[in-house]
């Protein structure tokens, strides 16, 4: 019960953060990614606000270094590239896409459905190869 209460609280805080910062709006995110256009640096400040607060948490409770992956391999770089292309095409990454579901926008639903198919496709591909 305690775990569920913590997780729900964290989900609410996360969603509230995305809402207040307007990162749930793909147009706002594309405004950041469009460095050659009318550039909107807001996303950098979202990260600048989030990273130090999160870092306090990681300092408070130590991580198990032995189980932490450190290699910068092809999977990491290729995965980040594919994700970046998809993010740039629409302006949605997984958090904002899910948080926007309650707006009932058809294209948001379509994006989330395609994202789940992409995740399932990875599982199938990963098990084979």
């Amino acid at each position, binding site marked *: 019960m305690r775990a569920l*209460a913590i997780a729900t609280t964290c989900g609410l805080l*996360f*969603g509230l953060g995305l809402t207040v910062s307007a990162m749930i709006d793909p147009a706002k995110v594309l405004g950041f990614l469009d460095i050659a256009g009318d550039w909107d640096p807001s996303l950098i*400040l979202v990260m600048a606000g989030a990273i130090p607060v999160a870092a306090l948490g990681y300092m408070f409770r130590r991580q198990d270094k032995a189980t932490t992956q450190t290699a910068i391999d092809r999977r990491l770089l290729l995965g980040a590239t*594919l994700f970046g292309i998809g993010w740039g095409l629409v302006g949605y990454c*997984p958090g904002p896409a899910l948080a926007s579901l309650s707006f009932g926008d058809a294209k948001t639903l379509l994006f989330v459905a*395609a994202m789940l198919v992409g995740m399932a496709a990875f599982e199938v591909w990963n098990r084979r190869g």
Partner: protein
Amino acid sequence: MSHFTPAHALTGGALIGLSAAILWVGLGRIAGISGILAGLRMPDRGWRMAFLAGMIAAPLLYRLAGGATADPTIATSAWVVIAGGLLVGFGTRLGGGCTSGHGVCGIARLSRRSIAATAVFMAAAMVTVYCTHHIGIG
């Protein structure tokens, strides 16, 4: 620079950071949305469902409380939305994280992998937007 909203961005960011800090201290979990979502088929789906339910409910509660939010505006065609969704789904799993897991939590943990991943996905996204908005590809 006309749409720049620094105060809202910093405040919202701090809330996201607080969420990540509490999830780590309280449950020992990383607040990476793609990882939480993909793990829904694992036996420990309870906390994942609770987190995602809270995250999906938050914008709704914010609006009910009188907060102003912009409706999502997606200018691209349905086919581009589908292609984007597929790439985000597959890519985040292959690369082991997204904007939250790598970009916020990973950088806060000073993970070399996450710093590299964040640099790569930001660059790839910026090149993509340059191609679609300024060269007319896609």
